[in-house]
């Protein structure tokens, strides 16, 4: 700009002066002393801590930040550096430029940090100096480690999960869900009990978090209690053991339910006989004869607390003789699944060929069934139900059969004994000795559960399936296998590390 105006700018060369103390030639600065003289004159590290003692827990590798916080930090990590610098007092009077570790022997219990600071001295000259701070590491067990060491089984909160039904399908499903969402990571111990599972946690908040997770996946009712373990009079600290008792609704998928009269009328006179199609944190009910559906919230269910009329143990196999779809076809799409009302002619498999017992029924599975198929349903004709709700209904005509699902038994017979394409992971559970465990029943329950997830993609949605190494691809011309079994794309491939076969990480192969 000056050049434009025609001004001549002289180039300014800074001359040298002699340092006022030692007389060496130097560039003039604010103090007019060479750096060495300045440094010898003024020590900006005066008054700063050079020696600090820090506490370290050898069990969990944590460092104490008084009064009570324990910080987890690796040796010579960024967190440790931040922690060390924070422990220096008076560092706010000078400006911190740089800090780094000086190598020390790991077991010497000394940490050395070289800190570079800047401070203003004399008349505006800013001096920069680096100095070393030594930290002596004292070993001191942190509270949680000492508590664990004193009594390894000590728990503070427990969640007792119960479902009063005769099978364990819900718990298998829950197990997979918990594994998928890592909800029980913080659990100290998991114990399998009769009709339920107990989870033990070290912290009340972990238990509450788990409880909330449960409430979001199944309809539950819970109550909590606490028990005083110890109490310190002087500081008024009370130590409690908290217990959360959780009950899952006994209504499961594919159950046949007779709704109480009041509930039925409040839901719009939905037929008293309904089938439960889906249980998440709400229960989905479907009237199989009118294709009307409704949802019941957790709260709503527990207000009435009805039980199922017939459960899936009582399913009987039928052969479909004929299917007639009335015109106009009545179909509905509920929860992503198509249902079609149809009239069916069925006969029990046990009756088939022996006698002529044929039943004419209305079913909601018109879209699935073809003549000659096998289906599973509830035999109300032969059933002897002892339900108080059912008796309250006067003038109710019970259907003879309620078909629930299609049966893939034949295809399964072909595959019997062969390993499955996928496998599932398990939670580490302790089995209580006191509980009466029927091995055979457990195994058949589990088999049933596996069939369920094979047949229902919606059920599979929330779970993680892993590829089974032992499965051999067989060139079977069974279309059944492709339909029913989980397609390969949905399986997660397990990465097995060469050294340790226990370590498995899932590599997401999801579409």
């Amino acid at each position, binding site marked *: 700009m000056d050049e434009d105006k025609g001004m001549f700018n002289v180039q300014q060369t800074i001359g040298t002066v*002699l340092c006022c103390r030692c007389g060496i030639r130097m560039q003039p600065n604010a103090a007019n002393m060479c750096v060495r003289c300045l440094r010898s004159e003024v020590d900006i590290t005066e008054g700063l801590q050079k020696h600090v003692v820090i506490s370290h827990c050898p069990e969990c590798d944590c460092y104490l930040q008084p009064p009570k916080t324990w910080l987890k930090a690796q040796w010579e990590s960024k967190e440790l550096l931040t922690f060390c610098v924070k422990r220096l007092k008076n560092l706010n009077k000078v400006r911190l430029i740089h800090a780094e570790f000086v190598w020390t022997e790991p077991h010497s219990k000394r940490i050395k940090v070289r800190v570079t600071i800047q401070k203003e001295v004399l008349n505006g000259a800013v001096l920069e100096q680096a100095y070393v701070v030594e930290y002596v590491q004292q070993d001191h067990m942190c509270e949680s480690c000492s508590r664990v060491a004193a009594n390894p089984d000590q728990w503070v909160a427990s969640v007792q999960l119960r479902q009063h039904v005769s099978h364990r399908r819900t718990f298998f499903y829950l197990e997979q869900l918990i594994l998928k969402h890592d909800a029980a990571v913080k659990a100290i111990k998991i114990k399998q009990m009769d009709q339920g599972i107990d989870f033990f946690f070290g912290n009340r908040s972990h238990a509450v978090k788990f409880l909330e997770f449960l409430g979001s996946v199944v309809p539950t009712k819970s109550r909590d209690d606490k028990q005083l373990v110890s109490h310190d009079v002087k500081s008024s600290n009370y130590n409690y053991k908290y217990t959360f008792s959780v009950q899952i609704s006994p209504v499961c998928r594919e159950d046949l339910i007779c709704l109480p009269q009041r509930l039925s009328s409040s839901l719009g006179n939905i037929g008293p006989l309904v089938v439960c199609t889906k249980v998440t944190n709400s229960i989905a009910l479907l009237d199989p004869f009118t294709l009307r559906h409704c949802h019941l919230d957790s709260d709503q269910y527990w207000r009435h607390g009805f039980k199922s009329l017939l459960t899936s143990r009582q399913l009987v196999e039928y052969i479909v003789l004929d299917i007639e779809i009335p015109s106009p076809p009545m179909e509905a799409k509920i929860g992503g699944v198509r249902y079609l009302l149809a009239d069916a002619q069925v006969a029990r498999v046990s009756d088939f060929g022996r006698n002529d017992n044929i039943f004419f029924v209305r079913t909601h599975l018109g879209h699935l069934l073809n003549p000659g198929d096998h289906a599973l349903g509830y035999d109300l004709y032969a059933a002897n139900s002892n339900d108080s709700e059912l008796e309250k209904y006067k003038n109710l005509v019970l259907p003879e059969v309620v078909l629930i699902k299609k049966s893939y038994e034949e295809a399964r017979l072909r595959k019997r004994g062969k390993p499955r394409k996928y496998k599932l992971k398990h939670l580490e559970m302790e089995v209580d000795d006191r509980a009466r465990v029927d091995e055979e029943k457990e195994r058949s329950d589990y088999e049933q559960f596996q069939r369920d997830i094979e047949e229902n993609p919606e059920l599979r949605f929330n779970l993680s399936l892993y590829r089974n190494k032992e499965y051999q691809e067989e060139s079977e011309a069974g279309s059944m296998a492709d339909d029913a079994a989980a397609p390969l794309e949905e399986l997660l491939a397990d990465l097995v590390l060469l050294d340790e076969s226990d370590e498995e990480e899932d590599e997401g192969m999801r579409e």
Partner: protein
Amino acid sequence: MATRLQFENNCEVGVFSKLTNAYCLVAIGGSESFYSIFETELADVIPVVKTSIGGTRIIGRLCAGNKNGLLVPHTTTDQELQHLRNSLPDSVVVQRIEERLSALGNCIACNDHVALAHTDLDRETEELIADVLGVEVFRQTIAGNILVGSYCALTNRGGLVHPHTSIEDLDELSTLLQVPLVAGTVNRGSEVIAAGMTVNDWTAFCGSDTTATELSVIESVFKLREAQPSAIVDKMRKSLIDSYV
């Protein structure tokens, strides 16, 4: 010869004294030691006068002068003016000037032949300086500072300027003033040269904080080592003796 001293525990001796080749002005201090040091050095050569200007003691910064004359600001009282006229030799013209910038010691740096002036000085003042002091006046800055009187100490043999003065500036000033110039410090790195010391052709007085290095620089640039007062003031003495008679 350079001497180190303090005025009432303060090292800025250039503020409280004014030294030229013909006379020396000293502030009225609490203790007599300041005055006595000047006396010891200079008594038999040039008159040492105790005075105040405008009732203040910062006389070194308020007045500017050389062997030909002395310029005092408009704040000087009549008594002080009279006292100065009486005490100083007749060859020295004492002149009070009306100038907005009243700290003449900070605005004017002069020796017996040439003077540097503050860039904002009035034209009349400049003419007065040229008349009274018998010097050639140049408006200049030193290291970008307009207070040339503070940042430069000047005698007929040499000069010391602000340490941040660039080499080009030094050359230019040196050419103007026709004396060798050096950039340096006084009083342990202080940049305000003229406040920290006062100097004439054969002697210098510096603050007691001045380091040996700074002292050696001062002595070398003002050529004080081989300086003898007698050779310089002989002419003056003759005029003095004449007047007594």
